[in-house]
Every structure is written in C-alpha cells, then in structure tokens.
C-alpha cells in the first residue's frame, strides 16, 4: 500500500481511513447496481448509507464485507484490498446481514461458539466471550434455547452478539431494525450506541430516518447507485431543507386548488395528494400568513424539518422499484 506515488489525477484510497472507496462500481450483466461511488470513513465514526430499495446499499455493504467482488474502482479496508485479502479483512469485520442467517441447527450459545470457531478463535477465549455477549444481548436466559423459538427482536440481538464475537474493528449493519417493534428497536439502538462509545466503527444502512439521526455521525444518500448528498444529519437538513415544515390538510379534493393561493409563503411549497407542505424557517409565521389569506385548513401542524424531508427531496416521492 505504501509505495511512493507519483502525481495522479485520481486521488488514491487512503490508509488513515478504515474504509476508503474510490469510484467503487458493481455491475451484474447490463445492470449497474453501484455506479462509481467514493467515500472515506475514519476510525470510530458511525457512517450511514441511506437510499430507497435497490439504490445499491446492500451491494456496497457486500463489497466492503469482502463477499462480493467489485467490478471497478478501488476499495481499501484497513489498508487491504478485500478482493485479494478476503479472509484477512473479514477477520476484523462484524457483519449483521439484512436477513438473519443464524444457524438453525445449533442452539443459541452454540451459534456464538461455532461462529467464533470460523474465526479460528480458541475455546478458552470463546467460552467467556459467548457468555459476555449473551449478557450484552440480554439473552443469557436463552443460552440453551433453539434459535427458531426466539422472537424477531431476540434473533436480531443474537445476530448482533454473533457479529461481535471477534471484537470487530468495523461493524457492518444492513437494515438492523427492519421488522422490529418499537421496544426492540430502542433496545437495539441502545446496544449499538454503546458499541459506538466503545470505539467500534459502525457502517449502517437503513430506511428509517429517525434511526439515521440517532446513530449516524455522517451519512451518504444513495440513489440509483450514485451518491446524492453527503454530510451529518444536521448539515444535510440545513443544506437541503428549511428549519421547519408546516403541514396543511384541506381535504384530498381541495389541496391542489388551494396550493395556488399559497404561493409566496415560505421558501418552498410541495403539494401532495393528501396535504400541502410549506418549507419555512419560521413555521408559526408561515401558518399565520396562511390564515391571514383567509384559508382554513382542516388540520395544520408545524414541525422541525427532519432527515425524511431531505431524503424525499433528494430521492423523490414516487415509488421506483
């Protein structure tokens, strides 16, 4: 990696970052899933990949995890090329896949032990580590249970416990809380936050904007295999949305007609089938302006701009699948 480099136009991947991608590309036949994306992740950062279904998030995760060969570009994980040094790179990764792939033929604690053996870790290390992780995942009383008897949230926590068996430097989480109830999500967020505090680099994909705001120091919004925006959640909101949003409902049949009478209020207006959104830095003032024009919405709501507003603005509201 550390050869003397001559002047080059394309910046090289950098080894002071735990992950460094340059023009990372993956195509399957004619279809390009990831189209030349570049990003760097410093150690200890919590980095998010956001994007609609089919945006290329999971494919990117698989390339980072060394289980999918890239079609083009450069990728360096802790200074190593995962295509060439797959086993060495994976020794330092923890992977939580989108769908649980726990070993249904083994019991809960044996899942951790067997997985640890895949890393070549000795029993003397694994026995106490497995107990410690079961405690961490709040599954200590389920140690001898069958995997298929666990609830969705328990399986997810076991998958996360399993991904930590090798003390990974980087934890890859592909939609970690999809399909979980609110209680289970909050427990999981708490556990992930503790890992972050312990200095583990988290790479996470998610559909939930609140999750991204909770967990990510920095994120990229990906759509159709390309990066649409990059920054911290707060910076992205500042850059791509206003401070507040007013949501007005006039009834499905009236929203469009009323919208023309709202011109000029706030910085931007968005008309949806069920409501009209006014983007403004001062939401209350905007709402007063609306009532000042003699318009009476059925319901109105002033709220802070969220990452969801940014996301929908960047990736569009229509369903593309």
């Amino acid at each position, binding site marked *: 990696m550390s050869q003397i480099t001559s002047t080059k136009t394309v910046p090289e991947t950098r080894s002071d970052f735990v992950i460094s991608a340059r023009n990372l590309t993956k195509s399957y036949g004619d279809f390009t899933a990831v189209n030349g994306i570049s990003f760097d992740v410093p150690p200890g950062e919590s980095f998010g990949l956001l994007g609609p279904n089919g945006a290329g998030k999971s494919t990117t995760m698989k390339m980072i995890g060394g289980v*999918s060969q890239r079609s083009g570009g450069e990728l360096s994980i802790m200074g*190593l090329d995962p295509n060439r*040094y797959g086993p*060495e790179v994976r*020794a330092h990764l923890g992977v939580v*896949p989108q769908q649980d792939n726990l070993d249904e*033929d083994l019991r809960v604690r044996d899942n951790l032990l067997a997985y640890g053996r895949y*890393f070549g*870790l000795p029993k003397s290390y694994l026995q106490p*580590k497995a107990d410690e992780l079961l405690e961490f995942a709040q599954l200590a009383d389920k140690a001898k249970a069958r995997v298929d008897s666990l609830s969705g949230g328990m399986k997810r926590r076991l998958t996360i416990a399993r991904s930590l068996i090798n003390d990974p430097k980087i934890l890859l989480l592909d939609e970690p809380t999809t399909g979980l109830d609110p209680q289970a999500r909050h427990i999981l967020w708490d556990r992930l936050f503790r890992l972050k505090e312990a200095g583990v680099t988290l790479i996470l994909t998610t559909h939930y904007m609140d999750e991204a705001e909770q967990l990510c120091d920095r994120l990229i919004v990906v759509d159709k295999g390309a990066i649409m925006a990059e920054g911290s959640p707060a910076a992205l909101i500042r850059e791509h949305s206003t401070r507040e949003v007013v949501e007005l409902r006039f009834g499905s049949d009236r929203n469009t007609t009323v919208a023309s009478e709202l011109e000029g209020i706030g910085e931007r207006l968005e008309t949806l089938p069920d409501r009209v959104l006014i983007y403004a830095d001062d939401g209350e003032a905007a709402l007063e302006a609306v009532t000042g024009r003699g318009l009476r919405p059925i319901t109105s709501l002033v709220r802070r701009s969220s990452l969801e507003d940014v996301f929908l603005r960047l990736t569009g509201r229509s369903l593309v699948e």
Partner: protein
Amino acid sequence: MSTQNSTAPTSLVPRDRFLGSLYGRNTRAVIARGLKATWGTNWSIMVSGFVEPVLYLVAMGIGLGALVGTVTGPGGEEIGYANYIAPALLAVSAMNGAVYDSTMNVFSKLNYSRLYEGMLSTPLGPLDVAMGEIFLALLRGAMYATGFTAVMGAMGLITSPWALLMIPAAVVIAFGFASFGMAVTSYMKTFQQLDWVNMVMLPMFLLSATFYPLSVYPGPMQSVIQALPLWHGVEMLRQISVGIFNWGTAGHLLYFVVMIAIGLTLTTRRLRALFLK
C-alpha cells in the same frame, strides 16, 4: 462497556498464498459445526439413509432372489442373487448419499437457510466450506458403508475377508460423486433444476448392471453403460466382495481417481460463481 475487555486474537497480516482469497485455512471449523449440527438435529436423516439400501437388499435379494436362484459372479463362479446385488446396492447408496449432500443439501444451505452466507462473512473462504462439506459427506458415506457391510455380514452375504475393503472403496465412489455434484450445483439457479439430477440418477441406478449382468444389453448399449460412473462403482465393489482382482479393478479405481480430480478442479474453478455473487 464490557464487550471490549478481551481482545480477539486475530491478525491482519496479509498472506500471499495459493488461492489466498478463497481459502481461510480453517476447514476444521466447518467440519466441527457439521458434526455438532448433525448430532443435535439431523440424526433421523442419517438413519433413513442407512435403512434404504437394507430394504432393497431384503426385498430384492431375499424376495426376488428366491425366484432367481444363483447367478454368475465376477470370477465365473455361481453366487446367490443377494450376494450379487449387495455390493451394487452399497455402490448405489454411496452415490445417492454423496449426490444428495453435494447438490440438494448444498443448494438449500446456500439459498434457503443462508448458512454459507454467515460462514463466508468470517475469514472462512469458499474453499474451506466446500472441503468441509465434502469431508462431512464422505464421513457419512463411510458410516453408511460400515453399517451396510455389517448387515451383509449378519445376513451371511460376506464370503471373503476382502469384503471389508468395500468400505474404503465406497468412500472413493462417494468422493467422485460429491466433488462432481458440487460443481454441478454451481450451475443451478432453482430447485426445479435439481430434479434434472434425479432424472440422471434414477436410470443410472436401474440400468448400471445393478440387478443383472451387463451382458443382457446389446453391444452399443453396453458401451454407454460402461461410460457411466455407477457401473464402475458397482463392478469394483462386486469384485472386492468376493476378493477377485484384475486389471479391470484397477481400471475402475482409476476412473474414480480421474473423476475426483476433474470434479475438484471444476468445483474450485466454480467457487466464486457458487459462493461469491
């Protein structure tokens, strides 16, 4: 924070070696997992795989054998019908077990239980997984062969001490089919395609001189059967069962050595297609 107080002894020293990106040099972990899983849950499948050839032996060997009487064995001597088909059934069970393990079993762990997906996100490579699974298939094959040989002994069908060599020979047959089967699985996309495997296996089982000598076929048909692996397996075990060896025995063994070599080469080449998409 308690999860970080012990550091896992893993290293990030890049090692440039043959098949380095495909092989994590930890096949033993795959084998250990397989033994643990089989011990815990799948023992009923193990039993059924052992019972099947025994049922055939009882039904055909004793039942049909009563009508057939004696037939001409490998050395030209007359032997009982059960003695004649028992080694053939052992070859068939070695083939069936190995093919099931390397096609159906691998395919479902790959696409349904996602077991391999989990394994491959660790330092294990596709080669570790493939070698581990083949080893487990052979171990199972060896256990079936031992059990079946014991049943043959109990039924008085063993007439030569050489018959014990049928056990390692059955493992060689299983190795040939398992290494080839995994290469075939790498081309499979759906469960329906796996039916094609059965469409090859069933005729091979019925026609490979399993229940009657090759001489019943006309000349060209004989050549077709002789090109198929099961015929070589059947003939090899039949010769071993009565302790009669000739150049033909060596030829049958060589057939499987070549089959194993080609199968393993193909499988290794297809590993990326099989596991890394």
